[in-house]
């Protein structure tokens, strides 16, 4: 280009945003997981082709690409597969209080769920620890129906 901006005050920036918001209906898979979460139950989908169990429930097996229509309750509690102490909010500002994000898995069940951990003092070894959910009173079929998980004493 044979001409460039060489004075700072000649630079123009235009502020703006992509308009619109979003409303996501749950699919057939998610619906089963959260319908049962209202009753404080964790459900997994079971693939009749490979026999694997998956949390959260989905209507297809990601590995065999077969349709799934069998769903079973998983009674035992999940364990902490990994955890992290998170210091930032969505605007990349420091959180008032850092919080613990966790990835929970169930024994011999594929997948797992992301959630938050509370009532914890930090020097405990967390990996592998069993946790139990603390539910909201009024549940409506949302991942936040679980307020948080805490270590199963």
């Amino acid at each position, binding site marked *: 280009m044979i001409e460039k901006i060489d004075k700072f005050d000649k*630079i123009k*920036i235009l502020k*703006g*945003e992509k308009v619109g918001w979003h409303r996501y209906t749950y699919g057939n898979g998610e619906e089963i997981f959260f319908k049962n979460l209202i009753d404080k139950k964790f459900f997994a989908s079971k693939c009749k082709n490979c026999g694997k169990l998956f949390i959260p429930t989905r209507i297809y097996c990601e590995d065999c690409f077969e349709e799934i229509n069998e769903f079973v309750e998983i009674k035992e509690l999940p364990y902490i597969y990994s955890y992290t102490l998170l210091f930032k909010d969505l605007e990349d500002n420091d959180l008032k209080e850092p919080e613990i994000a966790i990835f929970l898995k169930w024994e011999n069940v594929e997948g797992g769920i992301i959630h938050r951990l509370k009532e914890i003092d930090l020097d405990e070894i967390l990996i592998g620890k069993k946790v139990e959910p603390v539910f909201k009173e009024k549940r409506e079929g949302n991942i936040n129906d679980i307020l948080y998980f805490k270590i199963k004493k």
Partner: protein
Amino acid sequence: MEFKGTPLKDRDIKEKKVFYVDWHVKAHYAWDCGIALSYFFEGLKNGKIYGRRCPKCKRVMVPPRMFCELCFHPTDKWILLKDTGRVNTFSVSYLNWDASRREKPQVPAVIEIDGASEGMGILHLIAHPEKIEWENLEEVLKYIKVGTKVKAVWKDEKEREGKITDIKYFIPIKEGK
């Protein structure tokens, strides 16, 4: 062949028959206008419309750009254009950006700016010459057709911010009818 899918009614959602969750994404941006548009918007702030010329194909282009996309060659001159033009095409819109209905129509148009090369237009709005707001389709068609001459109506100088909206709208001018 059995085709799958579960159609829903508006009611199903309003009456919460199905689960759903909402989210408002904060997709905010501070876009760099760059060389050509910074100059163009500076011009608008001063009540002027500038085009940019390509030395190889001689096209005078608006909106301006620092390179000619056909010759793939740098453009070399700022050309002061008139703030009048000709309607290349127009429409009569009863819709806002989000598909909500408008009582009174708006007239978006591609306006070829006088002084730029043939066919060089920009998108803008055309208003009623006196009442500013159009009553209905019939009234628009009395004033506007492909080829109608139009003139820019500018915001007051102190209100101008260096944006495309510094031109409030265009209005049809006499000999165009």
